[in-house]
């Protein structure tokens, strides 16, 4: 993975994020779920994908699947503690998450993780991808998963949410 975060829309002065912020991300999901239910939480994820990440979508429109892969390489290079391989080929942009940095840090901190934490990668990713002409399919979860960004129409049907593993108790 490259250490240059040039594909990222928002840049910080330090090369990697502070892992304790994963605690706040997880707590935010739990708070929204308590107030609005799982459907409300899924709506929040879609909104953040459409809104906050709109600059990423614009880059994907211009740069295609290569830009998708470039973004995720830069993204995971800036996150602490993960083990992630990003490839781009005939199958699309494929992200092989061997160790999810967020799940690893939450587990190390003995935090109760929202059971559907891993769905956020689908709902945010799909909201970012769809306006650029792509779709995402995710298999696995709970610390390890495989995410494929494909051209829309290259796969039939919707994401099977059952293919995204729920978080297992510690």
């Amino acid at each position: 993975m490259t250490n240059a975060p040039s594909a990222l829309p928002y840049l910080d002065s330090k090369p990697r994020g502070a892992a304790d912020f994963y605690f706040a991300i997880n707590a935010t999901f739990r708070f929204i779920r308590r107030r609005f239910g799982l459907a409300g939480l899924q709506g929040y994820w879609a909104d953040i994908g459409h809104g906050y990440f709109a600059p990423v979508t614009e880059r994907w429109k211009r740069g295609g699947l290569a830009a998708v892969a470039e973004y995720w390489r830069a993204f995971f290079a800036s996150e602490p503690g993960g083990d992630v391989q990003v490839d781009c080929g005939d199958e699309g942009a494929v992200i092989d998450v061997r160790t999810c940095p967020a799940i690893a840090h939450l587990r190390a901190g003995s935090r109760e993780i929202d059971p559907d934490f891993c769905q956020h990668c689908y709902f945010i990713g799909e909201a970012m991808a769809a306006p650029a002409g792509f779709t995402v399919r995710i298999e696995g979860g709970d610390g390890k998963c495989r995410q494929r960004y494909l051209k829309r129409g290259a796969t039939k049907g919707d994401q099977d949410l059952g293919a995204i593993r729920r978080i297992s108790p510690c």
Partner: protein
Amino acid sequence: MLGCYDFCGHYEWTFAWLHREGGHDLVRAYWDEAIHGDSQRHAAELISEGGIEGMARYWGHTLADEAAGHHTTVTDRVFRVDMHQCPSKGFLLRNGLEQYPDYCDHCMGWIGPMLRASGWTVDHEHNHHGQCWWEIRRMDDRTAPGPAGGLSGEHDVRLLPTWNPKGATIDAYERANDPDDKSRRQVT
């Protein structure tokens, strides 16, 4: 995936989302319940058990982790932070991100209730340009904060020429624990 590298960006975006969905009360509840009561519960435990020593341990770790430009002053009665370059607000300013009217309120939004629960209160000012100061004392200690330079000497953020330039808006909290318990003044 939501990451921690640009956390402050989507955190601030989330304040605006919550405000749209449930108004100011929902944003306040988020800071208190999700950040104070859940995410930062380790801070509450450290400070509840260790007082000023716990504050030094908590903010020593977290401000170093976030690469903040700051100075802390610790006595047996007061914990003071002079924030010269807030990493969080600085991220937003550098990237032109502003969805919520006053991002800086989030600190008092979770720290204020956390300190109240263990008997501490806050004098604080922020200038909306990534600079602020905090003095935390026991609720029964009526000592007022001193003049600029009085407690932290040359490190006092109020001595910087960038602290209160003409046109700056400074929010001030006096013996407060509530994010809305503030006054505002414009530098003329």
